[in-house]
């Protein structure tokens, strides 16, 4: 099971980076979203997937899944959700004002 999820995380990373290297702004944002999904899946894999009962305190349960990675993912998902929505708004405004969504044209060497 860990093998499959780590491969999946790898695929997400690869597609994320491919999208990150594109010129169109929206694709780049999708790339960052995919990257963060890959990272979250990776945290889950690193904490070992299925090796016992759910981490709820009940009498008699000795082996339970490590709850820490899940807590970390929850925090990280919230953060990446916030950043992605901010980035979408930012990209929308920037493309309106600069009249392009192509990163090549957004290079700019003037500072004022």
């Amino acid at each position, binding site marked *: 099971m860990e093998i499959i999820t780590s491969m999946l995380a790898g695929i997400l990373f690869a597609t994320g980076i491919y999208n990150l290297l594109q010129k169109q702004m929206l694709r780049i944002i999708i790339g*960052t979203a995919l*990257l963060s999904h890959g990272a979250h899946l990776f*945290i889950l894999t*690193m904490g070992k997937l299925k090796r016992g009962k759910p981490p709820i305190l009940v009498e008699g349960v000795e082996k339970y899944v490590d709850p820490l990675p899940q807590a970390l993912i929850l925090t990280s998902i919230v953060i990446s959700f916030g*950043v992605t929505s*901010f980035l979408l708004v930012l990209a929308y405004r920037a493309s309106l004002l600069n009249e392009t969504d192509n990163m090549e044209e957004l290079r700019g060497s003037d*500072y004022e």
Partner: protein
Amino acid sequence: MSNLAVLPILIPLLAGIFAAFIHNKTKMVRIFSIIVSISNLVVVSYIGYLVFQNGSIILETGGWKAPYGIVLVADMLSILLVITTNIIAVACVFFARKSLSQQQENFYFYTFFFLLITGVSGAFLTGDLFNLFVFFEVLLMASYALIVLGGGKIQLRESIKYVLINLFSSILFVTVVSFLYSVVGTVNMAQIAERVQEVEQRGILTTIAILLFFVFATKAAVFPLYYWLPKSYVVPNPVVSALFGALLTKVGIYSILRVFTTIFVYEIDITHQFFLWLAALTMISGVIGALSTNNIKLIISYNIIPAVGFMLMGIGLYTEASISGSIYYLLHDMIVKGTLFLIVGAIVAITGTSDLRKMGGLIHHYPVIGWLFFVASLTLAGIPPFSGFIGKLLLLQEGLAQDQIAIVIIGLITSLLILFSMIRIFIQAFWGEKDDTITPNRIKSRAYAWPIAFLVAFSVFLGVGAEYVYPMVEDISTYLLDPSQYIDSVLKE
């Protein structure tokens, strides 16, 4: 008693939330922010006094014991940096009311300002690696909002790049933390340090260390990962640039300092030697950038980068004197970068341009700002008796003692070129013929000069009063070089 450790995070957080409610009552929110930031400075200084008297304050949040719960560690290093952060915050909050337009001020500037302080203080105080990520995110979110404040065309263009690069490095940070978790089974820095010590940092841990360094180096703008910094620090309002230049890269340097003196210290030949090379390249490339342009804002932005190189050099040498040099330089650089960005902001506001070739003779009309700039640039270049000198002296002396001649020479040349780039601004903008067509706005320039003078006073104190500050810094570096003290105080063994 231990609850005090949360105050530097809690006060600005609550203040930021409250400022959001009164955001369109300009006068009220100004007075509120000034009162809160001064009282926060007082509170933080009191905590600092307690830490230096009685040792580290450690708060186990929610009563969960150290390796399991979240810990906040206010030790000497972190509290000293939090105090410096708040000094800069006070200066910036006074400067903001002059430099921002009323619309920008009303558009939640103070909220994001306080959230930025929350994030920075939190990153300094936190005791586990995942919370370091969370506080990084808090301060980055505030900085994303501040960098687009005003919403100009260029601001939007540059902020997209800034956001994307920081987002990428944050994702990498999470990935590296999960790598580390799978190897050592914890995210608490003290416990990681303990476990790394037990296995004596095997190959995989060194790999993780380098990856972690890559993340922090992106935030701290180390060569070759500094390319995003200069332009994105030029576009926002000067007071925002001052906050960024003074605080954001320094959080990255602090993280490197913390992680590579507490956790990964067993393969010095690989990691710390590598830092020395990067430090040399960072210094050279930063100062070349500073000389390449006529835009005064850009010159100051580029000058952040060689300073990062100096601090990294101290970590790379990894001896007691060099670490104290790095810490001294860190304190000095936070204050002097804040000062310089504020002065440059004032110059741009007075002349209406940031092009060096279109200025001249400002010192006849604005002598106070001119001399403040002169003192600040001597401080930055490290002319004795100002504060930059002491940090540099420690670093270069230790470099000679360790037979790292190459980096010492590069450091000296860099200092000279930094001085050159600063004096160039002084000569072209302040000297020259008196232009009688300008009627100076004395009241406005005085309002600009006060916060700057406040910061310059601190940076002069750091230099002239070194005999008061240096023993503290020396204590900190002995403390840092013995990780067992940190581990014992957090895990209470």
